[in-house]
């Protein structure tokens, strides 16, 4: 740990926030040191059940694909490390840490940068997507990973998950009302309260609010199923073109809301359009049909 990192740690301990110290969450399009993922296993009754082998195999496929572009590191429950190690390619590192499920975008930390080599690991309170699941194994994994890596750590009082936040790494954060303003996450908080917390947490200077998706019952309308940044000022927005579908209205309301707003630099968004996988017959009521939910390695 160098002197600067120690100073950051001291400043955080003294009550400063990452935002106040000039830290921000870089855009996904910025260069990565690595990609973090989490192992799926089954130690709770409402878990994957019979699907587990397929889930693990798919997760290995994704990890393998990403590892062709950047190092992949997977956190795995200590008792599961051997199984994960055997299933994953040799180039993938496996780190034993108490964890539960594979949604590491949501359960993992946010990695922040000051643009000059400094790093902070930040986390929000994780309450299983608004307390929908009696699964608490992932409540601490983000903090445990930050501590494991020896990074200065910031704990935001916001309750939420990384999948509900998109940033251009230049001060703009896009999120949804159905997610962060939901009483199942942050009861009583106003937009202004949340915006202040997002500044402190990840350096947000402009929060772009989309309505979100009330019908999406797991994440309550995470923005990472609505759009993604491809460059500052440029996003891909996903819509459903079937005018008879409820998804048509929801996706177009989000699109219109985005069109009416500007980013941290005051410019309107340049929007590229894709259709979600609307012709797929859902095999579960939680099925994701999103293409913007891709990963830029």
């Amino acid at each position, binding site marked *: 740990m160098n002197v600067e990192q120690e100073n950051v740690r001291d400043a*955080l*301990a*003294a*009550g*400063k*926030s990452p935002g106040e110290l000039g830290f921000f969450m870089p855009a996904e399009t910025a260069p990565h040191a690595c990609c973090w993922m989490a192992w799926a296993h089954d130690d709770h009754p409402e878990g994957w059940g019979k699907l587990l082998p397929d889930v693990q195999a798919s997760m290995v496929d994704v990890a393998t694909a990403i590892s062709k572009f950047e190092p992949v590191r997977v956190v795995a429950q200590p008792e599961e490390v051997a199984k994960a190690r055997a299933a994953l390619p040799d180039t993938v590192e496996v780190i034993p840490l108490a964890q539960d499920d594979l949604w590491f975008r949501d359960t993992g930390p946010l990695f922040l940068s000051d643009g000059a080599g400094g790093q902070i690991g930040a986390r929000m*309170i994780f*309450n299983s997507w608004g*307390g929908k699941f*009696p699964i*608490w194994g992932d*409540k601490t994994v983000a903090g445990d990973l930050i501590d494991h890596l020896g990074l200065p750590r*910031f*704990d935001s*009082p916001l*309750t939420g998950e990384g999948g509900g936040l998109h940033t251009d790494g230049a001060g703009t954060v896009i999120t949804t009302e159905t997610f962060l303003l939901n*009483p199942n996450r942050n*009861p*009583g*908080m106003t937009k202004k309260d949340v915006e202040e917390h997002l500044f402190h947490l990840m350096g947000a200077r402009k929060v772009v609010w989309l309505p979100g998706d009330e019908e999406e019952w797991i994440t309550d309308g995470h923005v990472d199923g609505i759009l993604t940044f491809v460059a500052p000022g440029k996003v891909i927005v996903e819509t459903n073109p079937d005018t008879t579908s409820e998804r048509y209205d929801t996706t177009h309301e989000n699109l219109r809301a985005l069109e009416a707003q500007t980013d941290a630099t005051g410019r309107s968004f340049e929007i590229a359009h894709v259709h979600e996988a609307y012709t797929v017959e859902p095999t579960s009521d939680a099925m994701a049909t999103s293409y913007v939910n891709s990963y830029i390695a």
Partner: protein
Amino acid sequence: MSRVTPKSEGFFMPPEWAPHIRTWMMWPCRDGLWDDMQTAREAYRDVAHAIRAFEPLTMVVRPEDAAGARALLGSDIDLMESPIDDSWCRDAGPCFLTDGKGGRAGVSFRFNAWGGKYDPYDGDDAVADAILDAADVRSYASSLIAEGGGISVDGEGSVLTTRSCFPNANRNPDWTEAQIEAELKEMLGADKVIWLPGDSYDTETDGHVDGIAAFVAPGHVLMEGTGNPDHFMYEVNLANLEAMDQQTDAKGREIQITVIPDAETVESDSEKFCRSYVNSYLVNGGVIMPAYGIKEDALVRETFETLFPDREVAMVDIKAIAPGGGGIHCITQQEPAP
């Protein structure tokens, strides 16, 4: 009578299990109360961190203690400076109210350090208004001397309290029980006050209900059991249980009672050592309960897990707090969401 009260304006105190905006606490500072101030502060820190895993938390600190509190608490706890005298936010802090339509307010009762047992207490008497001011909500002032630990509410019109406490001459010598009852209804937006005998032998709070009984759902209270007949609390607990038996709440429901043991077997030199598991605290998605390191810990934990299947139960060692006369509930105060 045309007095404007919380009740006349549609406000009521939500139950503890309703969603919180945050929790408020007060940082230990009274000289002479604690065997070791640092140990007490570390235990308060542990409670604060356990709560902060579920919801935001603000610690009220004396200005001169702010830097030390920051160093011990870390960066995740918000600090508010105020010239407080002691560290029991349940009692000195406000009772927050909502109106079910997005409005918020709070009650500031008068505070005299539990019947004048400590001095000074003017800083603590002022802290309820300071907290309500910081929370940016209207304060309704009551001339009743009362503490938040002396009541438990179901949010549906019922209030539990004890005869040994607010009617005590050390607090409200000029008030009849009927007047106290009327004032509690007006200030907490309630329709029915259920009186338990309380605990006249309790030398600290004069039998606060939050060490005896607590609503855990509408129509359902958690109570201290009697223990064996040789338990020094047997008769007190039995009297309270008998008084609760077959009570109905404000909605006319018969109240179901779940009984848990207290931490009878913990050894302590402190006469006021808090042995109550009822004195636990509900947070967003969680229950924060004391761990005394005795076998009853696990039994009570199971009870909480059964009562609150959707909440995670977190246990905190409070052996450095309990000698001060209270537990986790006594040192916390919830700010409910509108």
